[in-house]
């Protein structure tokens, strides 16, 4: 597959200055003001570019360069404000920032129809970006108010940087605390933020006619090879979905979920008691009760199957037992193992940051589900990018739930990338080598 012309580059080293993190929003005020001015200019330039592109099928070089700089600057500002990067960004949108994007050097020819309908075509991507990094907003830049004899009216400028999306906001909120206390950012949060901003860059580049390529929401395509994947989490997803969707079951998905909803509720009542009992067992013994652990694990796996079905991350109707290996989007869970008693004792509080990220990803999951519903109905397939985003969301939510349900004491990893085994140590050669 042809690589997306908008590529993310991450060279951030995770080191943060406590003071600059603490005052980040205030420090960013000049950047915001400049971005606002630039956005107003971009609004008019983009309209001009749109008219030209309808006739000439591509943007003029000057406008293309201007918009590329704008997109790059948005990435820098988002990166700085959301604590995905540390250095103060310049005001020119020049390449070389620790979170950057490469954009097409020259404007490419585009389909007139796609240019003409760009706003409509971009709406699904804009919806997803609201759940991730934010992109287009219509009321954040300022307004001109006037009044007439008939009453008052107002006109608001559209800007292309309508504030952060849900995931980016969660990342900023948590990274602020992490940065202030540890003078570092968590790699998982940084990667999640980079992914969200990368998607914003894709959406902006598409919307502003910098490229005709549709935004790509596949986390692996966005970050793969640019950041190190996290270590394998004991709770991870095995994805064997073939992207095929049945139109009929897609249409009735919500209703087909009802029996599972009832069963989830009934089983969930028992699980609530089981978690409570297991909490005491873990506190006293340090290891969970095997039967309770298995019972809760089954439930969690079942919930993952069911929500994958409901939210169109997978196609087949799931079973009612949460049997491992029984569903194309499956959950691998650890066996009962010793857990840290402190982490067990304070689990209810420790889980709060993860819950914040989980809520943001729930939002993303629901947005993609709505879009997937329409796509599935018309094409009988799920787009791969949206599917992968869905898998990322259900994986994180499952890790969060497993932590909350005391199935593991390993904290959820917010990285959009699936965990990978570290590369094997180079094997010692048989013959000792001597450096002379």
């Amino acid at each position, binding site marked *: 597959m042809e690589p997306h012309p908008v590529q993310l580059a991450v060279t951030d080293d995770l080191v943060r200055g406590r003071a600059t993190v603490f005052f980040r929003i205030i420090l960013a005020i000049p950047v915001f003001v400049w971005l606002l001015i630039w956005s107003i200019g971009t609004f008019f330039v983009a309209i001009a570019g749109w008219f030209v592109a309808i006739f000439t099928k591509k943007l003029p070089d000057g406008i293309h360069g201007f918009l590329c700089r704008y997109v790059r600057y948005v990435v820098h500002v988002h990166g700085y404000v959301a604590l995905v990067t540390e250095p103060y960004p310049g005001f020119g949108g020049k390449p070389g920032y620790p979170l950057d994007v490469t954009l097409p050097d020259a404007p490419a020819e585009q389909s007139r129809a796609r240019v003409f309908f760009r706003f409509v075509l971009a709406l699904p991507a804009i919806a997803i970006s609201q759940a991730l990094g934010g992109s287009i907003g219509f009321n954040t830049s300022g307004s001109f108010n006037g009044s007439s004899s008939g009453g008052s009216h107002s006109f608001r400028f559209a800007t292309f940087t309508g504030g952060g999306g849900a995931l980016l906001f969660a990342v900023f909120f948590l990274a602020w605390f992490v940065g202030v206390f540890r003078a570092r950012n968590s790699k998982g949060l940084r990667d999640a933020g980079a992914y969200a901003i990368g998607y914003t860059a894709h959406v902006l580049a598409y919307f502003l006619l910098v490229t005709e390529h549709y935004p790509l929401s596949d986390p692996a395509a966005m970050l793969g090879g640019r950041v190190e994947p996290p270590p394998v989490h004991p709770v991870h997803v095995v994805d064997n979905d073939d992207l095929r969707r*049945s139109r*009929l*079951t897609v*249409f*009735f998905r*919500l*209703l*087909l979920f*009802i*029996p599972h909803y*009832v069963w989830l509720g009934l089983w969930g009542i028992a699980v609530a008691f089981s978690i409570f009992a297991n909490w005491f067992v873990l506190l006293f013994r340090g290891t969970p009760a095997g039967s309770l652990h298995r019972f809760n694990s089954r439930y969690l796996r079942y919930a993952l*199957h069911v929500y994958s079905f409901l939210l169109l991350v997978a*196609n*087949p*109707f*799931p*079973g*009612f*037992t949460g049997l491992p290996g*029984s*569903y*194309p989007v499956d959950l691998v869970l650890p066996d009962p193992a010793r857990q840290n008693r402190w982490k067990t004792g304070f689990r209810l509080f420790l889980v709060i940051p993860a819950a914040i990220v989980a809520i943001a990803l729930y939002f993303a999951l629901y947005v993609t589900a709505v879009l997937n519903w329409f796509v599935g109905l018309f094409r009988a397939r799920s787009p791969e990018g949206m599917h992968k985003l869905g898998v990322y969301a259900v994986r994180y939510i499952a890790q969060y739930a497993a932590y909350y349900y005391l199935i593991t004491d390993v904290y959820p990893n917010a990285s959009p990338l699936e965990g990978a085994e570290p590369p094997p140590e180079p094997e010692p050669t048989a013959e000792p080598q001597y450096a002379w």
Partner: protein
Amino acid sequence: MTRSPARAALVAALAVAWIVSAYLLWQTSVVPGSLHLPHIDVHDYFSAAQLREAARFGQFSSRLWIASTVVELVVFVLYAKWGVRFMRESAAGPVGTGMLLGMIGFALVWLAELPFDVLGLWWERRHGLSHEGYFTHVTANWFALGGQFIFLCVALGVAMGFARWLGDWWWIPAAAFFVGLATLFAFVDPYLLSTHKLHDAELAGQVRALERAEGVRHVPVVVQHVHTVTAVPNAEAMGLGPSRRIVLWDTLVDGRFSERELRVVLAHEIGHLARHHIRKEVAWYALFAFPGVYFLMRITRRRGGMGEPEAVPLALLALVVLGLLALPLQNAISRHMEAEADWMALRTTHDPAAATQLFRQFVTTTLDEPSPSTWDYVLLENHPTIAQRIAMAQAWRSWSARH
């Protein structure tokens, strides 16, 4: 050779037991067996315009029912043949897959019947009988389908679970379970409605007098808000034991009916409770459930038995066909009980004039045909016709004069 006569004898004995039970249940009515309903000329009670309007409305509704039923049958026939293909959309075990197939079957029928449903609503709106918006109606139906799915999944879960466990004998515990479920629903139904107390103190006082007259323990009378959806007046007796209550639609107490007419309605509903009609309905259900589920077991054998998901589409078709075949009998039973409740109302209120006036009003407020065609009567009428109800009021007048 020795098994067949024994089996035939057993089947015959069970059939006789069924007939005797049905006969005994039927015979519990207090309507005098010797009661002769006089012939009623509907033109004496209704204007030609009223009769024309009711006939027009009824004919279209009946045709719509026929078309919708035919479509339902066609869909289920096609589904019985090809529905098994949807098994590939399931990652569940046999029971879960069976549930999916059941739900998809119902969903397809819902889709196929939707145009008729909307047409029916249009027809009712056109005649001022419904105030429901199309979107609200379709949405409500959509959610109702969700409710059906729950019931369907429970039913299939039970039937398939027993079938996988007990083989061909599954029908006995399954039928018993369904009867238990019907009893539970009969008990719970009143609690599922959103109602408020009857505020009319005078009417509430009359209810107490009627309860005493019919020998019924105090039963709450509540009002259900339906006027935003329908203009049709109605009332029903619901519940078992502590959940018993009489539900009046607010379209009945909106001033269109006089106090005397409302008294007849209340006496009729209390009559249902006095004659234990809800319990009898459950008993009738039991009488139908056992042979019905037995036939289902026999029919689904050709697809490997009810324990296999492949049997579900066929089972749905069989269920619908059995339901259609049983419809005339079920309507007859319902009419029998409604007639008894009418008789109780006449016996309690001693007011055949109010009853006659009430039934006449039904023609203008519900556009019920006073004397529908025979097939309509057999297949669609679960109450006596308006003409029969007026005739009963007349018959009661003569009967009470004699006794």
